């Protein structure tokens, strides 16, 4: 129930006080927040100087937090080839403790999903080291953008869990809900910035939620697509037609906050030294499943497209109880072939609604 918040405690933060609060945080943490750059694009950015940037909370950032926890490319180890043998040296990825500020519910949900991916089967040291030092400050979405459909994936426009502090814009002030112990620590540590909230503030939050919920311009029947995938009643033709339009660019996977498939490759630095790299990959790429010798057990394109949507909307529902599409709409914006997940859901549900 959105109005009966599970967040234990709430405060008020006047908008005039936001920068002061962030300035305090920036002294102890690296700060990442959505910033509008000189090209007009809003991107999650590492902020060195708070006074030199404009934090933009009203528009969803083009990137998600994925790149901060799973960089597009990172070193896993280095290796040397000497007369004594071929040996590996570990790489210790170290990043300073970081506050991620202004994270929308879709992107928060994505981080929670990545936590499962990188700790369920085996604990991934590179992801978890970055994640362990992180503080997530979320902001609920009062104005979902026209491409958004988080209401259909159960990951917005407001969120009840996942962040350390969760903000709701109430005009001249933010309602600040503290989720975890670490959130309490922050509000207590810098209590001068916060004032007590009243029932009226919490009522205003609920009002904002109702209004936000009414602002979605797109109806995406994700639940229906999930049911059809589970029942195996999606015609092969849907995958075949979509795959014809996929240009194999990987844009959807790169922008997707929950696409975490990666590849590992060696990069020689000279004849006797090299580094092992992990890089983003995409299950739609033609070579993703090709084995040594060239045999591909997955039917090129059709099988790859099937995998993309089946993984997000069936396999992850089986695993976590919810789809790993968080309805951010980024793939819809980037796909020039019309092979995005919304198109898949629409084609899947055609004639069945």
């Amino acid at each position, binding site marked *: 129930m959105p109005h009966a918040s599970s967040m234990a405690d709430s405060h008020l933060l006047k908008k005039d006080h936001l920068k002061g609060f962030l300035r305090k945080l920036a002294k102890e943490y690296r700060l990442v927040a959505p910033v509008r750059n000189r090209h007009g694009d809003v991107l999650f950015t590492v902020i060195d100087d708070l006074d030199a940037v404009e934090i933009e909370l009203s528009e969803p950032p083009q990137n998600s937090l994925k790149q901060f926890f799973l960089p597009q490319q990172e070193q896993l180890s280095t290796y040397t080839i000497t007369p004594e043998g071929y040996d590996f040296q570990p790489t210790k990825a170290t990043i300073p403790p970081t506050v991620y500020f202004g994270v929308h519910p879709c992107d928060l949900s994505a981080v929670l999903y990545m936590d499962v991916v990188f700790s369920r089967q085996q*604990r991934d040291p590179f992801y978890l080291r970055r994640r362990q030092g992180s503080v997530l400050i979320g902001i609920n979405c009062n104005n979902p953008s026209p491409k958004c459909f988080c209401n259909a994936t159960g990951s917005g426009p407001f969120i009840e869990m996942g962040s350390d502090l969760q903000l709701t814009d109430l005009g001249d002030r933010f309602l600040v809900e503290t989720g975890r112990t670490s959130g309490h620590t922050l509000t207590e540590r810098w209590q001068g910035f916060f004032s007590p909230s009243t029932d009226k503030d919490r009522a205003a939050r609920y009002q904002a939620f109702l209004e936000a919920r009414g602002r979605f311009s797109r109806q995406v029947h994700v639940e229906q697509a999930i049911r059809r995938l589970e029942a195996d009643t999606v015609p092969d033709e849907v995958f075949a037609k979509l795959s014809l339009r996929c240009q194999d660019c990987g844009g959807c996977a790169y922008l997707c906050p929950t696409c975490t498939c990666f590849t590992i490759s*060696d990069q020689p630095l000279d004849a006797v030294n090299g580094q092992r790299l992990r890089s983003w*990959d995409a299950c739609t790429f033609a070579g993703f*499943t090709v*084995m040594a010798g060239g045999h591909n057990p*997955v039917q090129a394109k059709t099988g790859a497209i099937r995998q993309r949507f089946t993984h997000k909307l069936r396999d992850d529902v089986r695993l976590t109880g919810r789809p790993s599409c968080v309805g951010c709409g980024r793939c819809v914006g980037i796909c020039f072939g019309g092979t995005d997940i919304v198109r898949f859901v629409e084609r899947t549900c055609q004639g069945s609604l």
Partner: protein
Amino acid sequence: MPQTITDIYLPRQAKVEQIEVENSQISTFVLAFCDHAYNDAFRYQPGQFMMVSMPHCGEAPISISSTPTRPGAIHLSVRRAGKLTAAMHGLRVGDTIGLRGPYGRPFPMEQLQKKDLLFVAGGIGLAPLRGVLDTCLDQRDQFGTLTVLYGSRTPSDIAFQTDLDMWREKGVDCRLTVDAAEPGWDAQVGLVTSLMDGLHPKLERSTALICGPPLMFRAVLGRLTAMGFRDEQVLTTMERHMKCGVGICRHCHMDGKLACVDGPVFSLAELRKLKIMEMED
């Protein structure tokens, strides 16, 4: 407080102790970890695989072809298939490679106890079954009859000849066939399924273990089903492209399952539920 997390991606150095040339394309590498304490404590189960690193070649999954009943060394039988395996074929005794593992769901050895086991393999497919067979031979009283049906392209392609001779000596019923005979070959010619004609397994106490190329696999499944084997009585191990080996990177996806953690060993009953190439008509 940040916790120390084991670096699951870091290979350990292992030394090539011995190389057995099986045929022109397949060699068996006998390996031991350079860290003696680690090598002594290293345990695995038949059907599991290792991620092998070769200089500048990245990693590839290779199934373990030895039996855990003979600790101290790991055998990897490798067919020359791509860049990494070609580099392995250039290895000499004393060279070092990188290894991490063991990974994957092994053969259910406890379920196989007291069973008559029918091993059906083609080419390099005998490698993962070799570990099971040697386990059975080392614990001979715990298993029923052992039969090996092995298909190769030509008589000179027959790999694991030393093993086949030894298995025969120990009473394993080994039957060979080749796709194309060469002068001097007076045994079976034809698909491995042709070796199944003369078999009369006691169905109620039999389990079949299959590994080989997709075409052979499908033909064998057809025959086993026709002979009356239930899907639960047929086990196989699947080959897929892998990067992490631990269920994260997803390169080995199989319609909702991952070969690296849900497999590589599957029963036919499990595979029938999946939309995968091997199960297509």
